[in-house]
């Protein structure tokens, strides 16, 4: 299996810059979660990797080869806007897509049987898509992305609109494919799922990669509000003017503090005890949601500093 690598991928729509020199790699067997606000560029980035759109500059590589039509045919792609022929039966639809990916009719039929059974929709082979429930339509859509046993999986918001049981099935399939060595790249707004499933996460904002790494790397204390301090009896805004505090923001019953350069927790503690009784002092590891909020829209975090 080969890695999927974005190298300087840039894309504009007229005067709007959708992607700006995007660089990251999804290694074989890795599940990579792609998060970002609406319009941040996630869908454009995934479409370029799937071969649906062309980059203005840079390229996506599969191993050493830039992704072209033959490479993209080996990828499984699930677009954000789900789409199937509404009047075509499940079986005909999947056979058609399998053949489009280069399978013979026999290979496509065998894969169709396997995946529909695996996803619990084998009873609906001969039903047109528009007679199925939304959840089952989503399962057919996933089967469409998997029908040719792809070497790379690219899924745009795969969990959107799924019921809990379908979310579990989808998660299991992604883990299974990753265990087979397939690089899995997906975007999602459901950060709890990203946190649960992904080996690595990329946060995209305004077309640029704002952060990228494993969850532990991303959540490691950085130059952010990483100390939580609760001081009983201290007036609100007590950290204001304190030399050890670079910035702070209220959080729950205390404050989140960023230490000023050259100061340690001891300096902060010494300052704090002068304002009241210190009930808590600990390092805060941000959740992905907090991280996302800080990276994507820092102006909204209410930091007075």
């Amino acid at each position, binding site marked *: *299996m080969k890695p999927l690598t974005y190298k300087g991928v840039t894309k504009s729509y007229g005067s709007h810059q959708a992607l700006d020199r995007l660089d990251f790699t999804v290694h074989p067997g890795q599940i990579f979660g792609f998060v970002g606000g609406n319009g941040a560029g996630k869908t454009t980035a995934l*479409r370029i990797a*799937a*071969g*649906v*759109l062309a980059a203005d500059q840079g390229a996506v590589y599969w191993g050493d080869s830039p992704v072209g*039509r*033959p490479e*993209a*045919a*080996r*990828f499984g*792609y699930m*677009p954000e*806007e*789900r*789409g*199937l*022929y*509404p009047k*075509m039966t499940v079986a005909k639809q999947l056979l*058609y*897509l399998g*053949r*489009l*990916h*280069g*399978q*013979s009719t026999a*290979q496509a039929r065998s894969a169709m049987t396997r995946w529909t059974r695996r996803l619990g929709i084998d009873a609906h082979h001969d039903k047109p898509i528009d007679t199925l429930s939304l959840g089952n339509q989503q399962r057919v859509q996933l089967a*469409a992305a998997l029908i*040719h*046993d*792809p*070497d790379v999986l690219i899924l745009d918001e795969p969990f959107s609109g799924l019921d809990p049981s379908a979310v579990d099935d989808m998660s299991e399939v992604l883990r299974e494919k990753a265990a*087979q060595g*397939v690089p899995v790249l997906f975007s999602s707004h459901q950060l709890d799922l990203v946190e649960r499933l992904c080996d690595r996460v990329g946060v995209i904002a305004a077309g640029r990669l704002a952060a990228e790494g494993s969850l532990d790397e991303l959540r490691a204390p950085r130059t952010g509000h990483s100390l939580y301090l609760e001081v009983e009896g201290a007036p609100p805004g007590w950290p204001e003017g304190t030399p050890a505090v670079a910035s702070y923001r209220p959080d729950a019953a205390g404050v989140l503090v960023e230490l000023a350069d050259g100061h340690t927790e001891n300096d902060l503690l010494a300052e704090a005890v002068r304002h009241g009784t210190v009930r808590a002092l600990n390092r805060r590891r941000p959740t992905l949601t907090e991280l996302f909020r800080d990276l994507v829209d820092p102006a909204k975090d209410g930091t007075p500093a």
Partner: protein
Amino acid sequence: MKTPTEKHTRPLQGTWQVYRREIEARMATKGYLVSLLVLGLLMFGLTVGLDFAGKPKTSSVAACGAPAADFGPAPSGARLVPCPDLDAARRLTADRKAEAAAAVTADHVTVVLRGDTPDQARAVALALGRAWATNHAYALQHIDTAALDQAVVQAGPRLDTVGAGVGAAEISGLISMIVVLFMQIVGQGSAIAQGVVEEKSTRIVEVLLATVSPLQLMVGKVAGIATAAVVQVAAMLGAMLGARGLFPDAGGSLPGTAALLSAGFWFLLSFALFAGLFAAAGSLVSRPEDLQTVLMPLVLLTLAPVAVAVAAVQSLSSSWVQIVQYVPPFSGLLMPLQAGAGNVSLPQQAAAAAVTIAATAVTMRLAARVYRNSILRVGAAVRWRQALAA
């Protein structure tokens, strides 16, 4: 992952799969097969029916008061009904057992008519009356009528037909048929546009474009729908030729077999010229209900040759027609018309076909560009200029 027998999607394979799906989706349906049968029967019936409608009618005209031979040979299109006298002639005509009558009483002949006697029957009755009066006059003058007839036969007239001109009725039949074919281009072109907008509105197009290029998708779709259209036109032409085979006199006012084949060939070229543009028009909108707005200019462009042909048919040999017949899309209608009238040679048709094929290459290129730039743009309709500039 990948099994050894599996292969990457080749350009032609992708196009072939799209083409195959279109054929299955459109032709393997009851609706299509029924329409094929109905169209075939309709064209068969029209061809045979036109034969009967086109044949001259036979009128019953009474020849009364004298032996039928005294009225001379019966004119064509007339069936003579003998009767004894003028009263009987009046009764037969009034009772509509005859359309008109020529009745001899003593030394003169009377022509009996109704107010609604058809012109043809009136002319026959007058001719019968005039023939009896002439024969009666010859007898009074003691002229040897046998010798007179022989002398007239020897003097003529003889028929001498020159050139290979085609009758006005045949040209009218050809125009009607080509107009029907152009209507087929509009109908099947609209089907192409609907197919494209269906894929766009159901969003399947993004799944497809992850596997095939926009050009492959467009070409496969256009070719599939074109095949369905061609089979339909072939069924119509086949039914007409079949009717001719079964009833050799059928469809006297319809064009000859060579003209039919020429019309079929030019239909294919004209369809190819417009098909890509219809696909491009479909890609500009996201909802089927917006389709009519973008199709209207294209439909007008497709039907423009019909208006030109109506003007040209007044004088197919005029100098402006000699030029316009080489210009697409007008050549699609004017060339089969000229071929039907015997006004153009095969090399002239080949030259016009070459120009149309070159124009088709240009329209396909433009259509592919518009399609590629619009097919993923969802929301408000994309303008042609925006799609070409993107």
